[in-house]
């Protein structure tokens, strides 16, 4: 595996930008690009970054030696000034060293490959990066820190120890050890285990639900400045903004952070009758988007105030309840009575009010503080089957003679345990046997 690098901070102007570099042997390149050598790992150095005799930037630098790094390989981090020309210069320096730019998730992948993190952890790092709220981040770190795995581990160990008793009673019934007498302990422990499992699973939040973002759609007559509002809400240029009506022909979706929650904003071509085929197909899409929207921002300006009622009707007919009406271009003219916000995409007037109003949309589904783990839906199926088999086993034991159903109970426990395989790894029959041998005196 070659050396890869990546910008760890967002592209754009900022006081400091951070580059991370990893790859076995990448540290040998350091003396080529620094004015003087660095000798101690995990120490912050201030050095000049030089390339082919010319000065690039004064940087901070830390290096890590394999295997004591995030990826398990030799790595270093460069803290440079956060201007675009410097960033692009540094990128060309790294490329000159023969490093390649990392693909998405490649650092985590290397860490996973070198057994530094588990797959579940690798997945959660990705989520941590994408997470929009502090509650989400905490739940993800619950998984990442291994707390999740350690809890499942202890649950599965309890299942394992029950299996030792049950399998022992089957395979070693002709032995000296009186397994039958241990079986009376199985039922009460099973019930306890069931309670604990259910409580544990109650602490799950499913990332598919948490990450399903609220959809906010912006509609309005052409050329009222919908795209400008969209860009203003996002904080940077995204839609193509022009003075020509109908410029926005496709939907532009972008993440929008407000009040710690994530949204999708959809800018639509205006809702109007058109002969332009491309645009009319855009409009039917817009209606479709409206039907799926959680909230709608209707934008008008002082010239198109008359269309407001029509628009509102269209939107309501699509089943949207949460509607915010916005009068743009408040810097030009403010009508006396208007049933909504006056805003100006140009000056930013009243945008904090609009943002707060939109944030209310999301706050009806906050992440429960008690939900301590954010996991994939796939996991929930596994846990459901785990609980189901446990319940089966308990049902059998409550109703029937143990010896009559011991093979069935054993099967349920096996299935129950194997639903956790994916998370905690397989328990092979030989391991169960091993536990039996180390716990009981077996053998003639």
């Amino acid at each position: 595996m070659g050396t890869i690098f990546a910008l760890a901070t967002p592209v754009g102007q900022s006081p400091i930008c951070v580059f991370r570099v990893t790859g076995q042997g990448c540290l040998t390149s350091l003396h080529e690009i620094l004015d003087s050598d660095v000798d101690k790992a995990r120490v912050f150095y201030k050095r000049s970054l030089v390339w082919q005799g010319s000065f690039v930037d004064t940087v901070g630098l830390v290096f890590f030696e394999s295997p004591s790094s995030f990826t398990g390989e030799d790595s270093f981090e460069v803290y440079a000034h956060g201007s675009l020309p410097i960033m692009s210069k540094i990128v060309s320096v790294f490329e000159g060293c023969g490093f390649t730019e990392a693909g998405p998730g490649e650092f985590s992948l290397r860490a996973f490959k070198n057994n530094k993190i588990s797959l579940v952890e690798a997945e959660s790092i990705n989520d941590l990066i994408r997470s929009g709220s502090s509650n989400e981040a905490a739940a993800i770190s619950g998984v990442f820190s291994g707390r999740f795995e350690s809890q499942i581990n202890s649950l599965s160990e309890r299942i394992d120890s029950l299996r030792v008793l049950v399998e022992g009673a089957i395979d070693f019934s002709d032995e000296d050890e009186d397994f039958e007498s241990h079986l009376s302990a199985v039922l009460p422990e099973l019930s306890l285990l069931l309670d604990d499992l259910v409580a544990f699973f109650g602490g799950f939040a499913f990332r598919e639900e948490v990450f399903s973002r609220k959809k906010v759609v912006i509609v309005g007559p052409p050329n009222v400045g919908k795209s400008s509002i969209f860009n203003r809400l996002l904080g940077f240029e995204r839609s193509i903004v022009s003075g020509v009506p109908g410029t926005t022909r496709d939907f532009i979706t972008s993440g929008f952070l407000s009040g710690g929650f994530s949204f999708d904003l959809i800018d639509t071509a205006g809702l109007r009758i058109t002969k332009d085929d491309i645009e009319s197909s855009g409009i039917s899409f817009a209606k479709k988007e409206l039907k799926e929207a959680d909230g709608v921002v209707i934008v008008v300006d002082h010239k198109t105030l008359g269309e407001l009622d029509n628009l509102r009707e269209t939107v309501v007919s699509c089943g949207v309840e949460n509607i915010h009406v916005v009068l743009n271009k408040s810097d030009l003219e403010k009508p006396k009575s208007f049933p909504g916000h006056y805003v100006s995409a140009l000056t930013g007037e009243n945008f904090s009010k609009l943002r707060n109003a939109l944030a209310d949309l999301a706050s009806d589904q906050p992440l429960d503080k008690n939900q301590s783990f954010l996991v994939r839906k796939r996991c929930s199926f596994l846990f459901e089957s785990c609980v189901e088999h446990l319940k089966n086993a308990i049902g059998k034991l409550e109703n029937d003679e143990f010896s009559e159903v011991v093979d069935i109970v054993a099967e349920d426990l096996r299935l129950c345990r194997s639903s956790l395989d994916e998370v905690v790894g397989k328990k092979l029959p030989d391991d169960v046997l091993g536990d039996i041998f180390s716990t009981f005196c077996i053998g003639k």
Partner: protein
Amino acid sequence: MSWVTFSPHFVLVSSYHPVESLFINFSISFYPQKIKIFLRVVYIAYTQVYFAIKFLVALVFRGLPTEKTSLITITINIYIFILLYKQMIFEFDAVVVGGGHAGYEAAHALHRKGLRAAMITLDKSKVGQMSCNPAIGGLGKTHLVREIDACGGIIAEATDLSGIQYRTLNSRKGASVQSLRTQCDRQKFAESIQKILQRTSIEIFEDEVVDLLIENQTVFGVEGIKRSYSAKTVILTTGTFLNGIMFYGDKQVEGGRHTEEASKKLAKRLSSFKLPMGRLKTGTPARIKTSTIDLSTMEEQPGETPTPQMSLREKAKHLPQISCFITRTNTKTHKIIAKNIQKSAMFSGKIKGIGPRYCPSIEDKVAKFPNKDSHQIFIEPEGLTVDLAYPNGISSSLPTKVQDEFIRTIKGLENCEITNYGYAVEYDFVDPRALRKTLELKNINNLFLAGQINGTTGYEEAAAQGMVAGINAAQKILNEEKVFFERSNSYIGVLVDDLTNHGVTEPYRMFTSRAEHRLMLSQDNAEQRLTKILYEKGFVDNKHLESFKSKELAYEIFVQENHKRKVKIGNQTKQLQEALKNPQINKQDLLTQLGSTDQTNFERFANQKKYEGYIKRQQAQIEKDKKNHKKPIPNSLKYEKIIGLSNEATEKLNQAKPETLGDAARLEGITPATISTISLEILKYEKTNYRKAKIKNES
């Protein structure tokens, strides 16, 4: 005849034709392979000419015979000639090295397919010998025995011919985990096997195999001390004889079994193939004269009545049945053992091999569980006519003096006479991960390994492997499809799969908990699972198939007639098939209500109903797995190059070289995520190959 003194084995070979022994001795000591074969051809030509001349001389001097007697004599002569001719060209379809439980099942499978098999053993009288305790079956093991029986094998038949006590273990538990165990008359068992083999075309030779004949990674025969044997396939079933060393306390004796020699030369030869090999150990207890045991002080354990039978096939005629007895060790025994524990070969560090955890020596038990002040001992009779008992539970490698001392502290054994002392035996085994599912070595064609040589323990495990190797050797010789046993259709499948995928860390013994499809695999349904399949492959004869079919028919009729019949449970009336879903139901009462005496079919129906839901689920899973898991992994797939595999997984996959995705999935530490990564990679691999092929075709 001074030339015979060339031979270091003169005594052994002198009973053979002098010309033959000349060639043989030369061939072993001096000549390379090709010359040996040339010499053999010369020898055969010589004998043919010799007979022909003799016949012609008779013809010239006496003319054509006219009397009937002469005609018969000539016919017999020609017949004998053909027989001799066949004997003299030692050319076989298969050579089975070893006459233990793996050996006889392997040879018999070849025989069932009509092939010419030779069995080479050190001692003909020891063929079919039970070298440890005189019992067949037990939990998980009976399943193997019945499966072998269902495939046409002979171990169950021999068990019934020699069984002197039968007991069903787990009789109160569910049908799938019940196991019949049979105590056998040790001598009778071996005799029965030998008798069965005598009825076949299998040729048994007393010889020691010292070398394998191999060219281009393909075996084509074996070299014995007496002669060489060429064969299309070779099956090695050498048990504990490879570099075997027996330990009696501080005394060490080379050998594979008490008073029997070890195979050192063959072990040396095998190790030259760079096979992954290791060392295991196992132990056996002292043997005691039954007449000197005070059985009256012990708990008697009689056999079951009516006496069941091991074979599912024909009705067995049982020998007279006798009891086993149970006694226990005590604190006095443990004190002696603890005091002398350093003298045990196991504890003095002389034995490096790993012993089975489920079969510890008495010194192991005392050391590991110091809180237990008593361990159970089964006194198993060795036979009806011999004055010998096997004290199961006190296997030991303590010095004989200490054994003398501690055994006599046990209740009932105070005045016993010990005929042989317990010992530990350490031996070489081949890591079974070097084998394919057919038990053929991956890197040497046509060479199969079966039994303890693969790191297993137990007669049943050995016999099962012997049969698998024999069957697949036969299929290979005849260029027919391989026979795979699946985890979902047999314990044999579990055994082979576990061995070839996971290898062994201790002598491998079958347990029911190893079979994840346990609920589907009961000792009673072995025929339903296997007989038809093996009939189609040609290993089950018509008679067996017919008897199986008639049983199935009887069951179908029983179900047809009874499943909807109304039965009373308390105040309720229910259909039989519904009533049986409740495991608490009094089955005997139902049977009386039906007015039927067909216990067997009733039980079968009851079990089918009881396990129905679970079996359906398992079958659905099996079908799903089959689709995914039968996918072969291309040999040239490079795990290192697959992005997303952990180093650990890559290492394991490279070591195990799984043949299919299913095999990979069963490896330890391989997660479902890894499997989906690999399956994607296979898909990619197939696509690029397809594209490459297409480009090639087009250009």
